[in-house]
């Protein structure tokens, strides 16, 4: 409670002039603190501090009218196809699929030593360039805008791998995000999410049965 204390005791009274009482004002802030604490608790519980992160993706157009010339041709040696399957498993093959050899489809994992090392190895030129660029940015030799521009150039360079991500129906959303994440970590600028075809499903099944399917179909 606020209280007004008059202290007129002690001290010499001024000669002449009007008598002025000295008033010291003490306001008790305890209820104010109580209320503030309540409000803070409310804000802490009912709001979220961090805004969610987001990932921007560009999907290929679904247009059927795209002509041959518009399609981007990819060198066979540069193409890597990731096949995301159920149970957090990820397969990959390079270049064109080889339906005869079940070992052409390799099993990998989402761990750092899995698909990431494979992609980093294939993209080693771009990765080293980007790292150099990052160093330059840290030393304040280039600005943020320059960095973004140069990094984009390196990422989309001619000799960088092109990754095609195909997810099976059994894969989860997390798998897809993890795969897209690897693209970012490995500095791959050219990647696309595509629909899985029966051919890939065949490859997985063929691998699981250790090539039994391809033998049957060959006969």
């Amino acid at each position, binding site marked *: 409670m606020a209280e007004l204390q008059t202290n007129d005791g002690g001290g010499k009274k001024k000669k002449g002039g009007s008598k002025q009482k000295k008033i010291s004002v003490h306001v008790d802030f305890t209820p104010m603190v109580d209320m503030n604490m309540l409000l803070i608790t409310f804000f802490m519980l009912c709001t979220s501090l961090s805004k969610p992160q987001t990932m921007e993706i560009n999907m290929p157009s679904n247009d059927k009218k795209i002509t041959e010339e518009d399609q981007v041709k990819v060198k066979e040696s540069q193409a890597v196809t990731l096949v995301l399957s159920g149970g957090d498993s990820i397969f990959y093959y390079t270049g064109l699929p080889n339906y005869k050899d079940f070992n052409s489809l390799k099993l990998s994992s989402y761990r750092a030593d899995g698909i*990431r090392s494979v992609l980093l190895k294939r993209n080693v030129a771009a990765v080293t360039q980007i790292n150099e660029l990052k160093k330059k940015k840290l030393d304040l030799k280039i600005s943020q805008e320059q960095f973004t521009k140069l990094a984009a150039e390196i990422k989309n360079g001619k000799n960088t791998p092109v990754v095609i991500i195909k997810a099976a129906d059994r894969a989860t959303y997390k798998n897809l995000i993890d795969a897209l994440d690897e693209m970012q970590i490995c500095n791959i600028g050219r990647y696309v999410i595509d629909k899985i075809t029966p051919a890939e499903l065949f490859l997985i099944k063929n691998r699981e049965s250790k090539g039994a399917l391809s033998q049957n179909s060959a006969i």
Partner: protein
Amino acid sequence: MSKVKLARKSTLIDMTAMSDVTVLLLTFFMLTSTFVKKEPVQVTTPGSVSEIKIPDTNILQILIDPTGKVFMSLDKQKDMIETLSKVGDELGVSFTEEEIRKFKIQKTFGVPIKSMKQYLALPAEKQDAILKDYGIPTDSLDNQFKTWVKAARATNQELRIAIKADSNTPYKVIKDVMTSLQDLRENRYNLITSLKVESVK
């Protein structure tokens, strides 16, 4: 013997400094935080290293729960009203003033158009309870999701589409949503993730 005389001290503590601190903290929380939007289903977004923040306005959020139900939310009430009337026109349902008023205060919507009238007639508490059992149909026969997105896009050209899905959502559902978006030539959109720290070795 002389007694030790204990001085009687006042127990009043000066709370001014404490109050200063709490007001500061309060200001900090009020300025930095955003209110948690009420969502009909609990969704855990997967972690990602991406650090782009999502803008505050002009967002069409598509919420996908682990079982594949799709919900949507728009951040402007004006857009909500226009979108509803456009969808209503296209699917042949007209709404009364009262229904529109009820619809525009919804945080998240996701009811098949057939059940929309019935749903809007319910009191707010009941709406919250049953919304999670609905979801916008996305299958190819009756793709109302497409209609909604198309209407929202026609209403606001600057709309950005953000997909927020649970980590355990099967890809099949995501694929349906993505294909529908592709059919509408919405080829750029955002995927909402949470932060994950990871370094390249």
